[in-house]
């Protein structure tokens, strides 16, 4: 019964600024899709346009073959779990959940409501008012209230934002379980990259009204397409370099006189100035002068400037001869050397763990947006 949700050329112009800019997006039926980005990136506006709460300035929205662009919200087979839940404070939990069914004049809605309360494990709470429930319970009521309508698409607007960390973890798993169980398309808006990665099959990273990159969590993390994605999704070390040639399947990049290799498939540019990106956990430290085998990229002559021990790993800051500091996460497996501040070290990594981005992009994009 579900079909793909397709957004074509969607823009939304508010007085003075463009919240969403010519967006094309296809959300496959039955997928758990996340719209991830910092506040003001246009993700919530996009969600509200799908719900019908905002009208797009241009473009069309389709559900399968049906265009729903101009349809009033109450006529769309789409339901929303609102930020802060927006439960009706004057109705009890049962009536909140029954709300949509009653509006659609569904007869015999009572067993359906009971069943839904069962699903979210709130069967004993039907007679209570939303104000008497904890945040997590309210969240589940909001979910039940939307899900009971069996929408083709369920929209979730920062559904876990008001919960504390532990509860949020638990609810992430819970949401994923329910989505798998009901098989409805979930479109989930969040600014929390960890939340998006835990739950979503596909993530669209949005910034400034545009989609920066779309893909599975692993793809986005492993091979970010822009400096924004590299910084917003996890952390990245971006080192300035220039492409000076190629060898077999690799490009040769000059970094301050030292040559490093990057596989062609992991390069977004093929010539000129570049950012060489490496995730902190993919860089390794070795005492200065340690020889490494072929096929390993090396930067020499660094000094450890900061060590923080975080249990599962240790975070180092290593200063390169030209002053740039790289972040290095070493797993505390016990198999590798540990270092102290002031130790002279060399840095090395495997070419397949690095990526090249266009140097025209801002190396700090997305850094300050991570919350």
């Amino acid at each position, binding site marked *: 019964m579900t079909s793909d949700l397709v957004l074509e050329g969607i823009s939304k112009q508010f007085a003075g600024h463009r919240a969403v800019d010519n967006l094309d997006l296809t959300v496959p039926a039955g997928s758990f899709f996340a719209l991830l980005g910092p506040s003001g990136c246009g993700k919530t506006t996009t969600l509200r346009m799908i*719900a*019908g*709460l905002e009208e797009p300035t241009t473009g069309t929205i389709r559900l399968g073959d049906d265009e729903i662009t101009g349809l*009033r*919200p*109450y*006529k769309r087979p*789409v*339901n*929303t779990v*609102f*930020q*802060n839940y*927006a*439960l*009706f*404070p*004057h109705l009890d939990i049962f009536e909140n959940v029954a*709300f*949509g069914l009653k*509006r*659609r004049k569904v007869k015999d809605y009572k067993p359906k409501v009971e069943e839904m309360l069962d699903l979210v*494990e709130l069967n004993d709470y039907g007679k209570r*008012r939303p*104000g008497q429930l*904890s*945040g*997590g*319970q309210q969240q*589940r009521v909001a979910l039940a*209230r*939307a899900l009971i*309508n069996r929408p083709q698409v369920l929209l979730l607007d920062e559904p876990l934002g008001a919960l*504390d960390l*532990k*509860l949020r973890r*638990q*609810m992430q798993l*819970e949401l994923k379980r329910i989505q798998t169980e009901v098989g409805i398309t979930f479109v989930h808006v969040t600014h929390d990259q960890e939340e998006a990665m835990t739950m979503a099959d596909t993530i669209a990273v949005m910034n400034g009204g545009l989609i920066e990159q779309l893909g599975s969590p692993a793809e986005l993390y492993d091979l970010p397409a822009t400096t924004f994605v590299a910084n917003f999704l996890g952390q990245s070390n971006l080192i300035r370099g220039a492409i000076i040639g190629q060898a077999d399947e690799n490009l040769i990049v000059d970094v301050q006189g030292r040559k490093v290799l990057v596989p062609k498939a992991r390069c977004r540019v093929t010539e000129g100035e570049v950012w060489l990106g490496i995730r902190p956990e993919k860089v390794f430290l070795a005492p200065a002068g340690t020889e490494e085998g072929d096929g390993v990229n090396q930067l020499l002559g660094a000094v450890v400037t900061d060590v923080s021990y975080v249990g599962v790993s240790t975070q180092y800051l290593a200063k390169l001869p030209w002053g740039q500091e790289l972040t290095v996460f070493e797993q505390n497996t016990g198999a590798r050397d540990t270092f102290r501040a002031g130790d002279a070290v060399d840095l090395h990594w495997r070419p397949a763990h690095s990526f090249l981005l266009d140097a025209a992009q801002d190396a700090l994009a997305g850094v300050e947006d991570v919350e």
Partner: protein
Amino acid sequence: MSAVGQLSAASQTPAPPPPRSGRRLTAYLLLLPGGLWLLLFFVVPLVSLLAASLYDPNGSIEDGFSMTWSFGNFADTMADYARPFGRSLWYALLTTAFCLLLGYPLAYAIAMKAGRWKNLMLALVIAPFFTSFLIRTLSWKLLLSDNGFVVDALKWLHILGPDGRLLATTAAVVTGLTYNFLPFMVLPLYASLEKIDRRLIEAGGDLFAGPLTTFRVVTLPLSMPGVVAGTLLTFIPAAGDYINAQLLGTPKQRMIGNDIQRLFSAGAYPTAAALSVTLMAAIVVLVLIYVRRAGTDDLV
């Protein structure tokens, strides 16, 4: 999933420690000015009014009034003044209904649709308060006068007959009351409508309720505290008003306030007091029934 419940239970804040004596003293001190004020200007007058309603009805200012516990005063005055009494409650009811009909859309528009004009519109609602009640009612009199343009226009439109008039009619009194008490309806309505989370209205739309249904099942119930407050703030003073009946009506529109005012200044204390007490009691009873039925305590 059951762990969630436990978690949230544990995260609840513990009950606050019992207040200590210093704080208790502060509470007393804070209560003192208001308490004294109420005692002096509410309890004392109320008790003496109750007492006066039981004085000897044959007393006079000249010969004094003695306390004879004349409970018969109530029956006697009600026999004489049942009509203006009933009329007052009826006019107050009409006024409240008209204020609600006019005030709700107005308050709704200001709260939901006025945007940057909100403050200006609120100021305009309150603006009549910058002149005295009397002056406002007198202006109504001018406006509705037999040779005024309103009457002329209505005659021209054949809504009023050639001998028709607006002044000195029930319509004029109720219109005047409605005008004078409209802000008392609009302000609490505005306050409760303004407080409604817009997302609740969006949620109504999202859950298959059209605009009218959303209004009926979401907005209206959530604005009930404002409706209750507004109707009370309108009904209670309207029932006791006498200025409008005095200036815009005829003897046939006389309200109980006119009688009470007149009886007090004529020195018929027991009768006037008995009427006042009966009016108060009637209003209290009506309000209690109303608040019960409206179930305000259920609302957030």
